[in-house]
């Protein structure tokens, strides 16, 4: 696999929009985890988090579209339209590009189901949305493998930074799930909490209210 040294505007556009797409996808994943954990962005209401998550994901779709179209129409490399959605059939770098097709397919499913979420069952939408955790790593590996851009310099830092951010957020997500009180224990948990509070209050009152 040789690096492409000849440059066309289209090829640069594809690489640039590819990097931006990856960045946007990173932000979308981070925001999605923030929504799930009911976190907030400082000074912003909750609907700003969901709103940004949605807006950035639609922006990402736009950038991915440009990224893909410029790559397809660029005459320098042979990437057919079919290779955009069917993994591993392109003539140029079938494996790395194939991963890109996989990511694209998954993103398409996520976007379509989310646009139609009012018409889908909760469980169905949620089950499909879990695929988002698969999209991001596939997109990252596609990015690193398809060109040398991310393998050095500032863009390498960007790639590492994104990976660390998503990993940290993922761990935060898992920690949240682990700390969540199982349904069957919730009432008992609240009852224990109420009893602890009552005991503390009584003890406080017994000391003449001194804290």
């Amino acid at each position, binding site marked *: 696999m040789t690096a492409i040294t000849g440059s066309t505007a289209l090829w640069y556009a594809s690489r640039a929009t590819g990097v931006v797409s990856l960045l946007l996808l990173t932000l979308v994943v981070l925001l999605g985890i923030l929504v799930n954990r009911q976190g907030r962005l400082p000074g912003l*209401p909750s*609907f700003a988090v969901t709103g940004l998550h949605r807006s950035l994901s639609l922006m990402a779709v736009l950038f991915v579209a440009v990224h893909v179209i410029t790559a397809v129409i660029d005459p320098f490399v042979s990437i057919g339209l079919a290779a955009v959605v069917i993994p591993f059939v392109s003539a140029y770098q079938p494996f790395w590009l194939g991963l890109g097709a996989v990511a694209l397919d998954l993103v398409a499913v996520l976007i379509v189901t989310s646009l139609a979420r009012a018409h889908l069952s*909760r469980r169905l939408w949620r089950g499909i949305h879990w695929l988002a955790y698969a999209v991001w790593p596939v997109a990252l590996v596609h990015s690193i493998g398809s060109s040398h851009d991310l393998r050095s310099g500032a863009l390498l830092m960007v790639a590492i930074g994104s990976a660390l951010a998503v990993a940290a957020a993922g761990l935060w997500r898992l920690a949240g799930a682990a700390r969540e009180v199982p349904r069957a224990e919730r009432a008992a948990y609240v009852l224990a909490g109420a009893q602890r509070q009552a005991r503390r209050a009584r003890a406080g009152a017994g000391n003449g209210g001194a804290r």
Partner: protein
Amino acid sequence: MSKQLRVNPIGCAGHGLCAELLPELITLDEWGYPLLPAGPVPRGLERQARRAVTDCPALALVLADAS
């Protein structure tokens, strides 16, 4: 046909977006769960109500036909 706001209390996780988007109609109780109005949604707020329904991260808010 006038609409009524209802919540699926099993799906509701207390995100609270609905109260932010529709403060005229929805408030949160002391545990973060929505208190919905008993009557139908006023015509002028129906668009906002629809947005609250779509934006609920848990898809727990429903706009049903007032029966």
